[in-house]
Structures are given as structure tokens and as C-alpha cells.
């Protein structure tokens, strides 16, 4: 049996790897720009609704969805870490070594980004959106 994965598996594995590494960072960046931009611009316009939706609900969505994406990236990073724990015999150690290091970096950074998003969510529960 060949130990080399097919092109489809390689593509899926590559996408999963990069989602694990960058998913949390991108989700947090989207979260920050969305919550800050929506809150500041809406409040500056003297409104507390965006269309039919209350501002708090929109900001809440900008907290929950990136948080879920970050949890997904965290799980993907854990999967990469597990898969690089016991590489098969005869495999080049360099890609496995740097893959494992990337997985460690990804697990910790996704945890960090998730914490920041959750802290923002707690603030949303406590503070009215337009209080100055």
C-alpha cells in the first residue's frame, strides 16, 4: 500500500493545516473589525438598530460566529498535533517536525484568540452598546 496520499487528500490536509494555523487569527481580526466598526459607526449616527436588528444582536453575532470558527481551528490544530505525534518510519523528519511545531503554535494561539473574543462577548453582556 502506498504511503503517499492522493492529490485530493493532500489538498484537504493542506487546507485543514492552514485553517488550524490561521483560522483563529483571521476569525479574531474579522470579529474585531466588525464589532468595533459596527458599534462606533452606528452609535455615531445616533442609532441603536441596524435595519430591523438591534445593535446588540448584530454585535452578538460578530462575537459568536468568530468564536465558533476559532473553536473549529483549535480542534483542527489538535488533530494536526495528534497526527504528527507518531510519524511512520522512513518519513522525512523535517516536514513532520515543522508541522508539529506549527500545531503547537496553532493550539496556543487559537486558545488566545478565543479568550479575547470571549472577553469581548462578556463586555457585550455588561455594557450598553452606545454608552460613552
Amino acid at each position, binding site marked *: 500500500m502506498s504511503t503517499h496520499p492522493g492529490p485530493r487528500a493532500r489538498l484537504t490536509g493542506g487546507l485543514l493545516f492552514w485553517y488550524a494555523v490561521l483560522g483563529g*487569527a483571521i476569525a*479574531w*481580526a474579522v470579529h*474585531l473589525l466588525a*464589532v*468595533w466598526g459596527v*458599534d*462606533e459607526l452606528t*452609535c455615531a449616527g445616533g442609532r441603536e438598530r441596524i435595519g430591523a436588528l438591534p445593535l446588540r444582536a448584530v*454585535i452578538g453575532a460578530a462575537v459568536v460566529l468568530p468564536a465558533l470558527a476559532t473553536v473549529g481551528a483549535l480542534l483542527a490544530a489538535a488533530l494536526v498535533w495528534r497526527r504528527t505525534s507518531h510519524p511512520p518510519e522512513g518519513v*522525512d523528519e*523535517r*516536514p513532520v*517536525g*515543522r508541522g*508539529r*511545531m*506549527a500545531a*503547537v*503554535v496553532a493550539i*496556543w*494561539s487559537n486558545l*488566545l484568540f478565543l*479568550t*479575547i473574543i470571549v*472577553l*469581548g462577548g462578556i*463586555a*457585550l453582556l455588561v*455594557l*450598553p*452598546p*452606545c*454608552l*460613552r
Partner: protein
Amino acid sequence: MSTTAAAPAPGASREDLAALEERWGERPSLRSWFGTVDHKRIGRRYLVTAGFFFILAGLSALAMRTQLARPESRLLSPQEYNQLFTMHGTAMIFLFATPMLFGFGNFLVPLMIGSRDMAFPKLNALGYWVFLFAGLFMWASLPFGAAPNGGWFAYVPLTERTNTPGLHMDVYSLGLLFLGIATTAGSINFIVTALKLRAPGMSLNRVPLFVWAIVATAFMVIFALPALNLDNAMLFLDRRFGTHFFDPGAAGNVLLWQHLFWIFGHPDVYIIVMPALGIVSAVLPAFTRRGVVGYPLIVFAIVAISIISFGVWVHHMFATGLPRLSYSFFSAASTIITIPSGIQIFAWLATMALGRVVLKVPMLFLIGFVVTFVLGGFTGTMFALTAFDQQVTDSYFVVAHFHYVLIGGAVFPMLAGIYYWLPKITGRMYHEGLGRWAFWLVFAGMHVTFFPMHLYGLFGMPRRVYTYRSEPGWDGWNLVSTAGSYLLAIGLLLVLIGVLHAIRRGRPAPPDPWGADSLEWSTDSPPKPYNFPVLPRVHSLHPTWDEASRESMGAGATRDRILADGRRTLLTSELDGSRERVVEMPEASLQPLVLALAMLVFFTAMLVAWYPVAAVAAVAVAATIAVWLWPPRRPERELGVQP
């Protein structure tokens, strides 16, 4: 300069060494001095030039501290004081800290990754010349009484033409735009060099932490600097041509300046501190006799800080009246960013605890760094809390905090780096006793100067006042700060004397005086123009402690890593450092200097409103770039034409 050198590596024959010397060596001449593209010479120039600007900015600080020693002093006029504190801050941030660390990076990155030069040597030379000219452009305004005077972050509407007439802030905006070209060019060069020129076998998990830090810094510069450039371009257009980007009366926005400035400004704190933290990780193994604990976690910390630093800028604007919920998102990020910084501190402490500490001068400065930086980080966390920040904003408490962060987090590691790499850079050892005196004076001077600022900041003394009336708690502590600043200056003078003493009278340095772990210590002190007779093959994170990596440069080295038949180096893959192909490197050229001079003429002409001259200079810039990029005539053999 006579030095001891490593014996010729058995891997390269005498003929190979002669050929390499012929291809890479630069004969001493005026032309080679101005046209050099050797990363080591350029790196040394960055270090010396940044040191010169540091002296100018330091003298400005001494003048200010002398003025503030007593209440109602009249040594400096308000106008002079405004220019001095603005040039002090601007020069320390833009003309000293970043270029000094870029100097270390220039000298060390190719050596640490086992390459023969930076990826774009001519771009590297251009970066240096632009940095030099931009620094002179800004400092030259001071004797004319036209230096920037609106603070280093130049808030509008104070810095708009109606409130600050004259050339002052035009010098600021044009000078920083000019300097930005150098910083951007240098950053692109670092990224490509670290990704493409690593020695075979140096996969990402074997990259030295200093190189990780430099690459992360370079990425931060690429993403952060456009915001500052945009800000300065708009400020110049507002001031010179009457646009209204920051004028609320014409649908402009005053806070736009602050948002853009701090989108650059907070990452810039890490742009300054990050490479310095990389120096700490590079120096520590040599003086603890072991590798840094938690390599993957330090890489994580570097990556996390460089990303999160882009999401904390509003904590510089907690007093501007934005919605409190908005503050809380930035407050969360500002609090959490201390975790990766803390991880690095604990990793270094664990390295010291588990290793065998050798208390040489570089190690003393590392310990001084830990103490000072942690104190600065502690007050930094206090600023992340909106309520506290609003109480002390614009007071001397802020001045105390950022000097603890920047002197602790950048200057102490730089001084450690100067003593550590001085043997490699100059080929001479420094005087240990002189270095120890310098350390204790700098350490004591730093704390005596800046610790009292916390106190009189809390007692209500605002920053940026040229003088003050006698107030309880202000007078005595200000005098203490001034005394400390002179102590600090004497300590720094001793560092300078130590460097000059080493160059003139130091004993010759062996290739590796410390028994250190990274590749720069496996070649001569100072290195030959071609860096390595044989490009190494890397087998671990600590190549000079690893037999297989050391042997790769010795007997049995293959011709494809000697590359003596041209001015060439190896290109490798980004992730795994697998060999790809051999690339030809450019030779010395005057084009970078000519291009930088043309830019200097352009910016000077813009400053003094000689627009036709600026137009001619712009044409000269375009023409020089065209000549630079024109494809060289390649030999027929290379084009596949049969003779």
C-alpha cells in the same frame, strides 16, 4: 585589522578560498566604500549611524532634564523645548531603535541562516542610504529652528498649519515618508532572505529565534507602515495644499489621524521590542550553556504578539470619548497580549534556572532587561484597564511606563547584543571590567531617572511641559530624575568607550569566544566577505553544538555548497529549507546611492516648495530605477546560444 581566524575549512581548498575572495572581496577604494552591497558593511553602518542619532537624541534628553531639574527654570525657551522633545521621541523611535535593530539583523541574519548575503543586496544598500539621508534631513532642521515641534505622534488639529505654522511639521511628515522607504525596503529584504536563503536542512523548526523575531518584525512593518505613510501624506497635503482630511468643518475627521497613527504606532512598539527579544533568545544559550526552554512556545509568542499588536491601538485613545463597548474589545486584546510576552519571560527564566549561568557583561544586561521590562510590562497592563488609563493619561506616569518598556525591552538587549557580537563584528574582545561598570551605571541611571516619574505622574505632573511651578511631590523627584539621567549618560558613555577600546586595543577574538550555538559563530571573526567557505547543511536547532552540522562544513563538503566559481549562493524552499537552485548575487554598485540622493533632492525640494526641482528629481528617481531594473546582458552560453 589583524585578527585570529578559523583555520581554512578542510571542506574548501586554497584555490576555492582564493576564488571566493576574488569574487566577493571589495578592494578598499572610495568607489567600493560608496558602492558596497556587503550585508556586513551595511549592517555596521546601520549600527554606527543609529548610534550617532541616539547620541543626538540623548543629548536632547539631557538638555530637557537639565531644564526640568528645578521649577521655573529658563534654560530653554518653550519653542526650543517643543522641538527638543519632539526630535527626541521621533529620533529614538524612528532613527535609533528600529534602524539599530535592523543593523543587527543586516549583519546577523545571513550569517545565522548560513547564507552569503541578503536576498537583495542592492536594495539593502539603498535602505541604508535612505535611512542616513532621512535622518540628516530631519536633524538638519534643528539648527534652523525648524525642527518638528508637535510631539512624536503629531496629533491634529495641533499640527495643522493654522496651529503650527512654519516648516516644523512638514519636516516631520516628509522626513517620515522618506524614512519609510528604507524601512519597507529593509523589511522586504529580511522576509525574502529568511524564507529563501536558509542553509539546506534549516526547516522552520530549526530557524534561530532571532531570525523568527526579525521576520515577524518585518511583516509587522509591511502591514503597519502604510497607515503612518497615509497619515503623513494627508497631513502634508492638508498643511501645504489646503486639503481637509482632518478638518471636521469640511467633513474631515480629527480622530482619523489618531486611528491611523496608532494602527501603526502600537505595532511599532513591538516592531522595536520584538527583534530585541530575539537578541535575548540568541544571547541566552551562550551564557546558560543550554538551548532556550520552550522553543515552540517562544515562536508562538512571537507570532501571537505580531498579530494581536494590530488589535490594541484604541488603548492609546481611551480618553477620546468613543463608546465604552468599543474600548472593551481593545481592552481585552491589550490585556491578553501580555500572556505571550509573559511566556517569553518565563521561558528565559526557566532557561537560566535549568542552565549554568555565566555572568559576563551580556548576561548582566539580559538580567537588567528582565527586571526593567517586567516593571514596564506591569504598568502596561494597568493601561489596558480603561478606568486607570483615563486617570493618568498625558501624565509623567505614561513617560515612566514607555521608557521602562523601551529602555528595558530594547536598549538593554541591544547593549547585551553589542557586547555579545562585538567580537564577531570587529574581531576584537571587549574589556570585561569596563563593561561591568557600564552595566551598573546604565542600570542604576535608568531606574533613578524613570522610577520617580511614576510618582510625580501620579501626583499630577503633565508630560510635555517645558517648566512647572513648585508643587508638593514634583520638585525633589524631578531633581532625582535629572541626576539619574546624568548617571545614565555616563554609563552609556562608558559603553561607547568600551567599544572604541575594543576596536583599538582589544585582544583578537577567536571565531567562537562564547561556545555559542548559532551559525555565525562557526565562521571567522570578523567573517570573510563570502561569510562561509562552505555553506553549511543544518541538522538541528543548535548547529554549532551539533556534530553533523559542523562536519557538513568540513572534509567531504560537496562542491554544490562551496560555489567558488561565481558570486553565488543557494536558494532553498520556504518551509523545509530543501535545496532548490543556485542564484547569482549582484556586485557592488553606485545605483543605490544615486537613487537615495535623487530622493533626498526630491524631499528637500518638496519641503522648501521648489516644485520644478522636485519634478526633475522625480524624473531622476524614475530613470535610476529604470537603469537598475534594466535586464543585464547575459552571456550567450546562459541564453542557450551555441558558440
